């Protein structure tokens, strides 16, 4: 007993020693999105436990000069601002673009890299699609919540292009090669990589806009920001930043010009040329974004309704097959239900849209509809199977003695009664589907949640966009739940 106590005491001493040790070496917690990939931040392919990228090296440089140990904090790209404002990390570095919204809501460092937004098209279209004006009614891809996205929204009004947003910077280019979109607008760092990875693509020379990467900190961390600005400026002078960008093949003639401006003037006044919604206050921005939120809500509603119809039809077929079908069919259908229920919807959407793209190129909306519909069909089938089995045997016996075939019994007696039992769980399922439809943004469908996150990223706050988004979801789901309750009540009276 006493030896056990001694072991516990030693353990406590060791763990408290660790804490003391950690306190002695303060950390520089830096936030980034490793999904963004090279050259920004990515897991080293040779050692996935290690991160590599120019932002990783800049974070290490800053930590070294601040006499701290760098510690990476994974944050989704579109949440970096909100996370910085919350103080989840000391500084965010992940190819974050400079912009007025960021400057008003966060402490922003001096810019450390300048990039040009350029247009990438298929080789065959090189002469046809030279600028955004040539892409009327064409689908043009970019990353959501970026300068390029703002440019595309402006081009939508001006030239009638159709902006398509992606969550990552790899699939815009692969989809361009496949013909799903007709052009991509992103910075040339990404464009160069996209062209190198996909045969048959070409970058247009003309620059569509200029942007700069900055670090972001919580608004009250100006003292740390100023120290970091000093370190960045020193690294610009002594060539350490140049060395980092050269290692990543990103050094070009734009950077010395940027550094000269940063070192010579008050760089915080340097704003991107095409700052748009970000300069508006929250209410003006809300007025500007509300129509697009309504539009996105309509897409959510249409997608959810169509997917639910598909889910119910397929679900009823699966349930009927399992209740009435022979054993092998039952086994196949059970397998389908288990596989679909046992794997994430997100994965299924990825496989359907990107995984099968070399065999069948489904349009994004159709892929979303099929993905959601077939996923929910598995859940629906269980509801309908249980409902079919809950219809009393006496009802089936009565139908049989009246001479009905199995099909007639199903259509006239068992089906209608089962449907009444299934209505409440079906309503639940529909409300769940309505909310799960937000996942389809990963395959480029801009629905309500995605549009909200773009809105939030652009104004730098989730408060108003989040409340509006929640209100719209409730407007969509509450009447349906009420209708279902009324139908149920009516049936109960029957």
């Amino acid at each position, binding site marked *: 007993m006493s030896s056990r106590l001694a072991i516990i005491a030693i353990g406590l001493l060791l763990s408290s020693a660790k804490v003391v040790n950690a306190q002695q070496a303060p950390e520089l917690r830096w936030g980034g999105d490793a999904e963004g990939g090279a050259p920004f931040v990515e897991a080293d392919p040779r050692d996935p436990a290690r991160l590599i990228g120019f932002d990783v090296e800049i974070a290490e440089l800053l930590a070294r000069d601040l006499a701290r140990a760098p510690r990476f904090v994974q944050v989704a790209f579109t949440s970096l601002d909100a996370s910085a404002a919350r103080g989840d990390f000391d500084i965010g570095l992940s190819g974050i673009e400079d912009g007025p919204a960021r400057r008003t809501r966060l402490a922003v460092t001096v810019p450390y890299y300048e990039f040009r937004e350029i247009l990438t098209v298929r080789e065959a279209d090189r002469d046809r699609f030279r600028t955004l004006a040539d892409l009327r009614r064409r689908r043009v891809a970019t990353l959501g919540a970026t300068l390029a996205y703002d440019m595309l929204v402006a081009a939508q009004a001006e030239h009638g292009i159709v902006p398509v947003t992606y969550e990552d910077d790899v699939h815009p280019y692969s989809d361009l090669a496949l013909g799903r979109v007709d052009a991509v607008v992103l910075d040339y760092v990404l464009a160069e990589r996209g062209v190198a990875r996909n045969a048959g693509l070409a970058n247009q020379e003309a620059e569509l806009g200029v942007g700069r990467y900055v670090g972001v900190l919580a608004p009250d961390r100006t003292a740390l920001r100023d120290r970091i600005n000093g370190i960045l400026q020193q690294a610009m002078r002594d060539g350490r930043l140049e060395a980092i960008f050269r290692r990543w093949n990103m050094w070009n003639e734009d950077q010395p010009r940027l550094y000269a401006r940063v070192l010579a003037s008050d760089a915080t006044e340097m704003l991107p040329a095409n700052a748009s919604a970000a300069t508006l206050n929250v209410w003006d921005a809300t007025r500007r974004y509300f129509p697009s939120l309504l539009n996105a809500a309509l897409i959510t509603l249409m997608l959810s309704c169509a997917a639910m119809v598909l889910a119910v039809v397929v679900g009823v077929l699966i349930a009927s097959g399992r209740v009435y079908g022979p054993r092998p069919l039952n086994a196949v259908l059970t397998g389908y239900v288990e596989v679909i229920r046992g794997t994430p919807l997100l994965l299924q959407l990825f496989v359907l849209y990107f995984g099968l793209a070399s065999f069948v190129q489904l349009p994004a909306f159709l892929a979303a509809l099929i993905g959601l519909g077939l996923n929910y069909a598995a859940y629906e089938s269980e509801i309908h199977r249980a409902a079919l089995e809950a219809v009393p045997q006496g009802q089936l*016996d*009565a139908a049989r*003695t*009246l*001479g*009905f075939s199995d099909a007639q019994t199903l259509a006239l007696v068992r089906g209608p*009664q089962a449907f009444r039992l299934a209505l409440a769980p079906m309503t639940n399922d529909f409300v769940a589907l309505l909310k799960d439809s937000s996942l389809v943004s990963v395959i480029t469908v801009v629905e309500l949640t995605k549009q909200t996150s773009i809105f939030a990223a652009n104004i730098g706050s989730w408060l108003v966009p989040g409340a509006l988004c929640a209100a719209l979801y409730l407007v969509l789901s509450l009447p349906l739940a009420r209708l279902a309750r009324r139908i149920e009540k009516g*049936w109960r009276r*029957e």
Partner: protein
Amino acid sequence: MTGPTTIDVRDVAIERGARQVLHGVSFSAARGELLALMGVSGTGKTSLLRALSGLDPIAAGEIRIGDVHLQPGRVPRLRELHRSVSMVFQFHHLFSHMSALQNVCLSPVHVLHESRAAAERRGRGLLEMLGVESRADAMPHELSGGEAQRVAIARALAVDPGVLLMDEPTASLDEARRRDLAATLLQLARQGRTVVVATHDTDFARACAHRAVMLEEGRIAREGGLSDVLRVF
């Protein structure tokens, strides 16, 4: 009063899992005859009715109903069977999502392919004959036990069957309703139908049955006129 044989049961055995509930039962019933299948609960009356209506298979023996021949392991020609045999269940089993009239018309429309209007006309006529025409639009749960039973009889008669099977028809009826039911069943028999009633209600059997078969522990104990069969009661 009675005509040619319409039901012929020969050496029928019925099993429920490992348990044998009927052992070599034989009897027959003729056109226009009202036969009471009697015995205490659990003697196999309902099992026999279910076999006669083609709901459950028999383990041995054979059953002939009109042109239909039911044998062990053979899939019966159900459509043909159900055109000539209808059953009224003890708990009626009216389709719970339909009105009384819809319950009655469903089979004529979908099995006999009558027009909806003709089926409704005939359905209302049957409900009227059974004294529940005023309840045509009521849902099953709005009907009393007696009303539900008469609607169930109307539904069974809607396909104009030659044979009507009834399982414990007096279970939910008071004395007055029992007398009405007895009169109705006798009227159906007079119309030329064979009516087989499974019951343990001796007064009811005495009031309407022409003949009785007494089952005891899955075997026929007595068979014949009511006074002979019921002498021990």
